[in-house]
């Protein structure tokens, strides 16, 4: 993550926490949950796609050729889970993890120098498929938890994240010369290099939990059902990392909007 982004993320996080704490006086009127510990387990979706691009430059025919790979990280499944501890009134801290994986294509545009002439590049287009993106995030959260009713709990959270990302990057492209007069050539393949990196980021979100399972006829026979609920987490995770491929650095944006739902347990 670049220092500027990092400063922005910190500023946003501090702002959100300050906002929550600053509203504590008013929040004293807000009902606080009685439970100290909450555990949750979710699955869901990352709905928004995001893009990034990598450019590589290489010597060929006494000039520099290049290719740009434009990656689109499509929507994909997210698994998440965590635990939180209520420290004081509505304030809690949480630690949780999320996992995201998707397989995506990249559009490749290459410029290859002409074998006979300077400054007369030939352009090709190609596609690299099956590029895997994995993100494993560890999120520390400060939560402000409000018990709106005895069955409805809403919390807002913000905090730093540590994201371990793995991304398949196009490392090189291969072309086949059609032959004289070398005005065109055929994109014939590519190689992929899987790169990993860890970076710090931030997260913020809203969690809406309902505890109504004990009211359902077929579940109310279980004593613990008052402590089990269903929740919807809307969370935004943001991070950025520079991945190195050869001598080139590729800036890869991580995270995004997560919509997950699952079970909530409170103790």
């Amino acid at each position: 993550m670049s220092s500027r982004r990092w400063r922005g993320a910190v500023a946003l996080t501090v702002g959100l926490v300050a906002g929550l704490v600053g509203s504590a006086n008013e929040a004293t009127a807000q009902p606080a949950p009685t439970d100290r510990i909450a555990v949750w387990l979710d699955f869901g979706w990352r709905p928004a796609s995001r893009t990034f691009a990598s450019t590589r430059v290489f010597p060929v025919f006494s000039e520099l050729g290049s290719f740009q790979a434009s990656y689109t990280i499509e929507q994909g499944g997210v698994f998440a889970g965590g635990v939180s501890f209520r420290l004081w009134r509505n304030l809690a801290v949480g630690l949780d993890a999320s996992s995201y994986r998707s397989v995506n294509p990249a559009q490749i545009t290459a410029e290859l120098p002409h074998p006979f002439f300077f400054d007369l590049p030939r352009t090709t287009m190609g596609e690299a498929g099956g590029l895997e993106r994995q993100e494993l995030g560890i999120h520390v959260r400060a939560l402000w938890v409000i018990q709106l009713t005895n069955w409805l709990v809403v919390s807002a959270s913000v905090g730093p994240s540590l994201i371990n990302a793995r991304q398949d990057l196009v490392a090189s492209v291969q072309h086949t010369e059609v032959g004289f007069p070398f005005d065109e050539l055929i994109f014939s393949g590519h190689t992929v290099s899987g790169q990993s990196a860890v970076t710090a980021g931030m997260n913020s979100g809203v969690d809406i939990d309902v505890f109504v399972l004990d009211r359902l006829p077929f579940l109310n026979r279980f004593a613990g059902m008052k402590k089990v609920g269903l929740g919807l987490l809307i969370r935004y995770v943001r991070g950025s990392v520079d991945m190195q491929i050869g001598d080139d650095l590729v800036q890869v944006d991580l995270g995004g909007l997560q919509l997950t739902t699952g079970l909530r347990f409170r103790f």
Partner: protein
Amino acid sequence: MRPYTRLLACATAVAVVAVLTASTAQLQNRSSVLTLAAGGLSSLSELREADSLVDRLGRDRVLRLAASEDDPLVPGRTHARFRQYHDGVPIFGAEVTRQTARGVTVSLFGTLHLGIDVETTPALSTDDATRIIERLGNVHPGGSTPPRLVVLPDREGTGVYRLVYEARAFTGTRLMAYFIDASTGDLVWAYDDLKTQQPALPCERCAVGDGLGVKGDRKKISVTAVGGTFLAQDQLRPADVFTFDMRGDLLHTLDVLDGTVQLFDADLANDTDNRWLDGASVDAHVGMGWTYDYLYHRFGRQGLNGTNVRMISLVHPVDRADIVTAPADILGLFYLNAFYCGTCGPDGVGLAVFGEGLPPNVPFLGQRWNFLSGALDIVAHELAHAVTDFTSALLYMDESGALNEAFSDVIGVGTEYYAEPFYRDGAGVADYLLGEDVIEPGGIRSLADPQRFGDPDHYSLLFVGMEDNGGVHTNSLIPGHAYYLAIEGGTNRVSGLTVSGVGAANREQMEKVFYRAFTVLMTRDADFAEARAATIQSARDLYGAGSAAEQAVTQAWTAVGVN
């Protein structure tokens, strides 16, 4: 011979028709010599009569098909080249080119000799002729081109024909064409067939290197990797391109030219790190490649012979350090000249030799002479001689020789304009000067202003002496200047006639007009009048009757006094 009496009568009748028809159509009977220059829309009846004559001669095996090719510039057109024979023996210079469109004749050009009466059984054998030539020039006729029997028309047009042996031999500074009387062994005629720049004087091992030209400009060079070194052999183009470095060894150069020794890979220019610093080798090699590209892209031509024959050049034929002791003829040919030898080199496919120039501190007639391969127009000029050899084979003397030189200048200038965008570092500015990049200041010829170098810019100033094969270099500026005027327009200095050229933006039109006329329409013994008719025909074929191109080329020839 009686059938030919009838043919002669027929030809005479056709000629009468020709005189009465439009100016672009000429069918003239000079004694027993019939000149065909018929085509276009204005002389249809004449064209049909001439066509019938050619058909009849073809049926009688007097005319035999020598080559036929589809026109790469005008779809649907085919060009056939016929050679005339007398009792099975070819008649020197007697050819007809016939252009057809879906089987219908569009134009005919050429010269036929009718009513010949000469015995075709030689008294001398081929070996006898070889020995005579060896005695005459102290040379050995090339093994790949042994003497052959031809019927030689008298050059003065007296109607006398002789059965002769024709042979070529490189004499050290000349490529002599000898004509030996097949009965008496007398030398009937000889001329220097060496095409000089100026008178008197996908493969596994392919690689792309980085080279510096004579002027220090960067170029890419297509080479072959062998072991730990790189050789100046371009295998990326359909025609293999070879540049041999004679390393200043004149004796070796002479041995290669006369076929005494073969060229080997060890003779190829080479470099160990593929960063080529010998400008003469780089520019010769790259220039040949660019000339190939120009011919291909502009005219759809596959190399010098149309079927990708190898392209070979020699650089550093002499050592500049030897200039003090060099004889005048060596100085004139291997230092201050470039030439194309059509029968030299491996398999006799021809090669170009680029002169060494002079040391920087030794000017000649006020000009500095650098390595001649450093001028792309010179490289292309020499290679264009090969194109001529493989097509119209314009006889290298008098007006046909001047046309031969003019065509090379046209290709030289055209290649320079084509390649201008490919140059770096300020080199390669295109113009109508020849050799200006290495012969400074000014070059050696100017198509724009022939008088600048004392060359004729009008037919009235035609050089008529015997020197330089009848002034092939100086007289080439008459058609060369016509080419310039047809593109750029302007007023001829002598006639005062103004030409509306097609404009520099349409340069390609005139390049095609001239290329097509010179390669498929014109015949070996063509004169300026035939060149005029052929280029006009070519312009019509390519761009239509009455087109700006036709008007430009017609005005240009008229302006330089060729009608």
